[in-house]
């Protein structure tokens, strides 16, 4: 099966007041197209750091990270921006929608960054929101929606560009159990029906139960 992500000997070391902190230690990790993998582990295990490194938000201290055939560590800042814009969708723990834009405008924003024309932008955004059951909320701003609804808008924004990889960092952390289940059903449907490749960092057992594979991290290493 086609590999979307390939990490080899990836290490990430931070300097915390001149004391080196090893967030990742020689991590090898592969993600195949169509998989939904959860990176699991306690706080500080390195799961978010690995997610950030794969997403081009952070640079590894050493090692190789290939996303959709592109060596991420060799890219300039501008090339990394383009990679994130065109190949990776992000879902954050805190939703991170633009508060002054409505649901549909938030989804459209990323398409506008890609230079998609207005008519196509509007139709794809609407389709994305409909797929996530948000047809009636497209003109609401984030402040007028619940946490679960905001997170679904964030997913709509992340998938509207049809990325090769969806990265979700603790997507259920701010949601109650029933909303988390609804959200996971949405992700499951995207994964099964649309073939979206998903990598989730989580310590929520319910999330792990939905994923097709689980990778455990402890002290920066895959265990």
């Amino acid at each position, binding site marked *: 099966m086609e590999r979307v992500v390939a990490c080899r000997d990836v290490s990430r070391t931070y300097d915390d007041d001149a004391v080196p902190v090893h967030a990742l230690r020689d991590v090898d990790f592969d993600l195949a197209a169509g998989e939904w993998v959860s990176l699991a582990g306690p706080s500080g295990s390195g799961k978010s750091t690995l997610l950030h490194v794969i997403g081009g938000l*952070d640079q590894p201290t050493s090692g190789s990270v290939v996303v959709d055939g592109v060596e991420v560590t060799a890219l300039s800042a501008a090339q990394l*921006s383009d*990679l994130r814009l065109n190949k990776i969708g992000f879902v954050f723990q805190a939703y991170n929608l633009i508060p002054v834009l409505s649901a549909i405008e938030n989804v459209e924003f*990323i398409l506008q960054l890609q*230079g998609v024309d207005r008519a196509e932008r509007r139709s794809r955004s609407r389709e994305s929101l409909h797929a996530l059951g948000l047809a009636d909320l497209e003109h609401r701003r984030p402040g007028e929606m619940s946490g679960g609804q905001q997170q679904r808008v964030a997913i709509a924004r992340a998938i509207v560009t049809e990325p090769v990889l969806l990265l979700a960092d603790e997507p259920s952390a701010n949601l109650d159990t029933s909303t988390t289940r609804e959200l996971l059903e949405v992700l499951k449907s995207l994964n099964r029906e649309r073939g979206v490749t998903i990598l989730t960092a989580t310590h929520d057992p319910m999330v792990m139960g939905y994923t097709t594979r689980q990778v455990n991290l402890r002290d920066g290493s895959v265990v």
Partner: protein
Amino acid sequence: MTDPSPRSRALFVRVAWRNLWRRRLRTWMSACGVGFAIALVTVGMSFQAGTYDAWIDTATSLMTGHAQVQHPAYFDDPEVRHNLAEGFDLASRFEGVPGVVAVAPRAEAFALVDAGQRSFGAMVMGVDPVRDAALSDLSDHLAAGEYLPHPDSAFVGTALATNLGVGVGDEIVVLGAAAEGGVGALVSSVDGLFETGRAEIDRNVLQVGLAEMQAGFELGDAVHRVVIKTRDARGVAGMRETLEAATPTGGRLLDWNELLPELEQAIQIDKATAAMTYWLLLIVVAMSVVNAFIMTVFERTREFGMLLAIGMRPNSIIGMLSVEALCVWAMGTVIGIVLCLALVVPMSVVGIDIAGIEGMEAMAGQLMMPERLYPALNVRVLLESPGWMLLGTLVAALIPALRVRRMQVVESLREEE
């Protein structure tokens, strides 16, 4: 791949405009700060423009006119022999020039004015009363008697008349060096007195008929100045070529800038002094805009981190912040221009009564100010301070916005809102 920013301007403007209203009070404070600064500077500049127009009008309308033709040596060495022949013919050369509204020839000499027991030195001017009254308002300052009613009349400054101990109806004798080297003399009857409020003129000037002056000082038909008044003193520079073309060989054209260099210097000094005040004001306001945008960037660090994470480039975010600054500037400019127009337009119609302000009347005379001051609005006045404020606002927004370029995405995403 291309930078997506050029295709995203419409959304940037929408996001920027809505972002401004997340902190309504701060936005209004910034816009009002920009607006008041623009209003203060624009009102100040319109008063300056009105004051300079008044200075120029007052200085040129009394005697100097907007331009003169003289003997080439007369300006630096004002001797009687440095004159121009055929004064009236010379004057008529300028009467048909477009933009010229009045022309008057003058002869003049420094002379001793004798009134029996007392003698004083003074500037004697021979004028054609009809032509001169069309370009000089000296006759409007009549204090007693009449303005040159007869060929042998004299029109004397009140201070000079007091010094000489003469009044209307008395006779004076004027003695000086004639053009041919002999003694020039004329006897005149004091038929009128003038009082301009400017001591150096009231104490040192008298006017007589041009023909009497030419005859008494052996000038024939010669004059020393052909004084020209145009429609607008400020427009003389643009007419220079036309006036030069009408100036005969052996004549020298001088405009009011050259005739009254101290006036131009005074204007430049006043402009420089005011400009310092305006700059200080604009800098203070720009600092407050810097402060507002520092707050904005700190408050929205996580939002900017998210925008960077989804693939927006730092320059595009800085562009979006610049659009916010542009919106603040636009609001401020509207506020400033409306305030300025509300203040200046009514005052430019009715004027400000300078003479009515206690202690200003004497000062107004010394400063060549008219009794009423009319602030003047023009395109330059209306555009200059908004233009500088635009630059200041954009720079003020750019200083904190540049922080976006140094943002670490992961760190920014961890920031609390």
